[in-house]
């Protein structure tokens, strides 16, 4: 019989393990998930019967339909895990037996494991501990009601919730050293046996392979880290920190897209690492995209990565795990002193019939100008002198995006400026392209590394100028120079969301040091780190034989830890002090035994006294008095007598009697 405590703890375990997933689910799915949970809790208190099977099937079908329509199918990890969450919640509708309750609690732990596909941050420690603790308590209560099922109901013990919590916590505490030893020593696989299919990825964060007005703006709200860079050389000034990402050539009037050429042609001319002014190590958070980020111009190519002809670093597989790479950058590199005809055509291409007013203005400027540089200068001045505003909430643009932006709204974000500038350059006959990436970053003094957040996402332009090749122009800097000097968030004079405070951002930036350490020591720990660890013992590369030795050592160490620690746990289990009265009585019996009295455990106190008197030939009444007092203390709960008894026993001298 499943008792109330048991099911409530199972539900608690399930809800705790669902929390991170619930936070990322659309609100209608959250409601559908919580509904069966609420029903089951009510059923427990109102003694409802299990739902008829027809209703359960209907509820399941309905829930799955909503899920599929919300995610547009069951592809993607979020959808799959949401499915698991939903099914577990629905399983509660028929959880009225211990067996089902155990399945739910176990699968809640499985769900807990799946959540680490999405986040492995240090905050997840709290999540693990909460899930583990509540599941342990649920299992303890389930076991108890299972064991006492033969009697109907488990008897109450003095094991209150606090005892169970302490017991669960001590089990976890004992398991921790062994678990950590396993974590460090358990052999890891160098490469995965199977990978995630690419369509299972959700492309959840970061820059994407197209840029429409609004796409970077939404990133701007996201303060999660994109990557961290630790410089071996000096740290560049903020205005030099342009982290290059996706480069766009194709414009269809509304949005910018990557071109086939730029993604697939490799760079002929690669910067020489010898000339690199900056050397640094990047620790990149998973993006599920293929871009690696580097300062202009990347002079090194990490493994499984290619350097394209417009100097994007593109990996062969999406980045689904924390990735670390060594990078060097040469800001003085000349990108394409000569521009091939096909590329020039691609860099000048514009769709027909868009933005007539801008086209007319640019044609006029072209006529008036002596050189390309003059037009570039004039355009930047135009942005600077007209009443352009740098804002997070620009008005929506419809068809002629550049015309409307330049002449009507005059308000926008970096992507608006970069897009408009690039279109204007192309109209004036200057080859231009849009580059997206990140600009700036927060320098963490303690850890001496640069932290770049998603909110540092930025878009700028590159124009081809004969002689110097592709040259970076940041039109946003012409409108809002503080964007480049101070950073995107700081340059804004409004809060992005309710809790967006400077002090909170500072605290978070400082705390990031811990996050980074966590990444290095926990999240990024793998086969490489493990062999580095083993190299401490002098094993550079672990062959199969040494691996076996390592495993055996690990097992021995773990076994030793278990057996050394076990008594601690078991001591805890009996932490209750033995009854002082029994201790006193035992002491008395020991004293009698020393005098030669033979006693049996089965003897009652008075019987023992009579026995002792006859064996010792003792005529006094001390022994009887002690036995009587003991009997009184034991059975009448007369606490006052206990001190008297203690005194009698302590002063009792068997020798003086015999």
């Amino acid at each position, binding site marked *: 019989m499943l008792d109330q405590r048991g099911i409530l703890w199972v539900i608690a375990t399930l809800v705790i393990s669902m929390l991170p997933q619930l936070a990322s689910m659309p609100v209608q799915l959250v409601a559908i998930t919580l509904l069966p949970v609420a029903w089951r809790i009510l059923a427990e208190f109102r003694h409802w019967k299990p739902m008829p099977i027809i209703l359960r099937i209907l509820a399941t079908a309905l829930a799955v339909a909503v899920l599929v329509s919300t995610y547009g199918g069951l592809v993607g990890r979020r959808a799959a895990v949401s499915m698991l969450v939903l099914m577990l919640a629905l399983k509660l509708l028929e959880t009225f037996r211990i067996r089902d309750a155990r399945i739910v609690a176990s699968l809640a732990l499985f769900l807990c494991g799946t959540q680490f596909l999405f986040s492995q941050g240090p905050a997840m420690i709290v999540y693990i501990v909460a899930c583990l603790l509540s599941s342990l308590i649920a299992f303890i209560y389930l076991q108890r009601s299972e064991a006492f099922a*033969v009697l109907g109901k488990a*008897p109450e013990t003095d094991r209150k919730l606090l005892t169970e919590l302490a017991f669960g916590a001590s*089990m976890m505490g*004992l*398991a921790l050293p062994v678990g950590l030893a396993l974590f460090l020593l358990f052999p890891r*696989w160098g490469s995965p046996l199977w990978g995630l299919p690419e369509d299972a990825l959700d492309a959840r964060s970061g820059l994407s392979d197209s840029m429409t007005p609004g796409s970077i703006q939404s990133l701007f709200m996201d303060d999660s880290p994109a990557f961290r860079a630790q410089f071996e050389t000096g740290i560049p000034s903020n205005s030099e920190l342009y982290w290059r990402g996706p480069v766009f050539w194709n414009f269809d009037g509304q949005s910018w897209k990557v071109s086939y050429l730029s993604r697939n042609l490799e760079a002929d001319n690669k910067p020489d690492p010898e000339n690199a002014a900056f050397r640094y190590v990047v620790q990149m958070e998973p993006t599920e995209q293929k871009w690696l980020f580097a300062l202009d111009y990347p002079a090194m190519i990490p493994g499984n990565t290619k350097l394209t002809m417009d100097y994007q670093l593109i990996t062969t597989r999406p980045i689904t795990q924390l990735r670390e790479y060594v990078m060097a950058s040469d800001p003085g590199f000349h990108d394409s002193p000569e521009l091939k005809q096909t590329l020039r055509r691609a860099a000048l291409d514009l769709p027909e019939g868009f933005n007539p007013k801008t086209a007319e203005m640019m044609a006029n400027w072209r006529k008036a100008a002596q050189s390309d540089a003059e037009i570039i200068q004039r355009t930047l001045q135009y942005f600077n002198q007209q009443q352009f505003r740098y804002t997070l909430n620009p008005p929506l643009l419809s068809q002629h995006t550049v015309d409307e932006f330049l002449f009507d709204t005059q308000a926008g974000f970096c992507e608006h400026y970069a897009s408009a500038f690039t279109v204007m350059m192309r109209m004036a006959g200057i080859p231009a392209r849009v580059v997206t990436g990140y600009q700036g970053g927060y320098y963490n003094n303690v850890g001496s590394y640069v932290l770049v957040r998603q909110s540092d996402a930025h878009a700028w332009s590159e124009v081809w100028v004969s002689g110097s090749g592709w040259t970076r122009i940041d039109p946003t800097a012409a409108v809002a120079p503080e964007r480049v000097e101070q950073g995107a968030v700081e340059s804004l004079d409004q809060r992005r969301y309710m809790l967006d405070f400077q002090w909170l951002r500072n605290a978070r930036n400082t705390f990031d040091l811990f996050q980074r350490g966590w990444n290095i020591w926990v999240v990024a720990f793998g086969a490489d780190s493990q062999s580095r660890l083993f190299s401490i013992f002098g094993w550079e590369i672990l062959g199969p034989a040494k691996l076996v030795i390592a495993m055996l050592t690990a097992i021995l160490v773990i076994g030793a830890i278990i057996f050394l620690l076990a008594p601690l746990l*078991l001591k805890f*289990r009996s932490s209750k002090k033995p009854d002082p009265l029994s201790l006193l009585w035992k002491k008395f019996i020991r004293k009698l035994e020393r005098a030669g009295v033979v006693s049996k455990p089965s003897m009652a106190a008075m019987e023992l006294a009579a026995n002792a008197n006859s064996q010792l030939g003792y005529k006094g009444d001390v022994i009887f008095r002690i036995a009587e007092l003991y009997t009184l203390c034991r059975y009448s709960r007369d606490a006052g007598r206990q001190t008297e008894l203690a005194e009698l026993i302590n002063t009792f001298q068997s020798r003086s009697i015999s």
Partner: protein
Amino acid sequence: MATVAAPPVQKSISDNISGWIKQRVLAKRGPLTPPFELEYRHIFVLPTKFGSGFGFMLVCMALGGLNFNNNMALILVFLLGTIAQLTTLIAYRNLSGLKIDSVWSEPVFCGEDANFRVFVSNREDRQRFAIQAGFNQAQDCKDFKLNSSDSFLLKHPTLSRGWLEMPSFRLETRFPLGLFKAWSWVFPQTRCLVYPEPAKKAPPLPRSGHGQTGRPAKGDGDEIHGLRKYQAGDSIHRVAWRASARHDELYSLEMESPREDACELDWDLLKGGDHETRLSILTAWVIAADHKQLSYSLKLPGTQIAAGKGASHRSQCLESLALYLL
């Protein structure tokens, strides 16, 4: 005839394993009979069905975690695995040191369940939780406080009269999480005396004994015999006021004097019928005679028990019936 069906025996794999272990234990070490203390070599630990399923889930999680090198998932798996491992130790410690003092049972009539009481004591300064006892399936479950003793009640169906040897039983615990069970087989050398089943429709008690026979003298006496309608002349002290109030009529108590009565229960009185039927009628007679506080004697071929009454006389008669020709 009320037959008690033996509990259905489900043979699962773990039952088979534990049966095999039981045979091995018996063959290697001889039976363990009370009193004795459970030690490490008496206690076996194996995963339960739930434990195996849980283990399978952990293996799946570990494979996923290793494949994607998802370290947090691996930490979770390793922690859970270690905790599971730890519970084997806890379950073992929950049983180890438990002392089985004695096993004891009272005679029963055939058809009733034999009640075996297993007296167990916890001599240590630690609590023990949810210790189950049973022959095949657990029948009783107890918590033990520190330095305490308690008893388990194990029921076993009886199918025939005579001595019922108590089968081996096991003490088992799945504390704390139910992932593993630790158990120990006990081979008690205890037997329960099973009396013949008393016949449902026994002939009336033969009253041919040497004592006084016939109806007891009603009227004056010290013992209440029954109620009858009030008749003129009945003493006012004899009126049963309570009964009268219920029936709107006056009733008075009928009294009788206690008197010695005796009967002779003789095997030869019962002609026809097989041995068992005769024994069961004699059993019913013994019970009836004892109930009526008659003095009775019992005569079986080869055995004769002189007239008498009281509990020990009754059990002597029943025992000789139970063991007749066995």
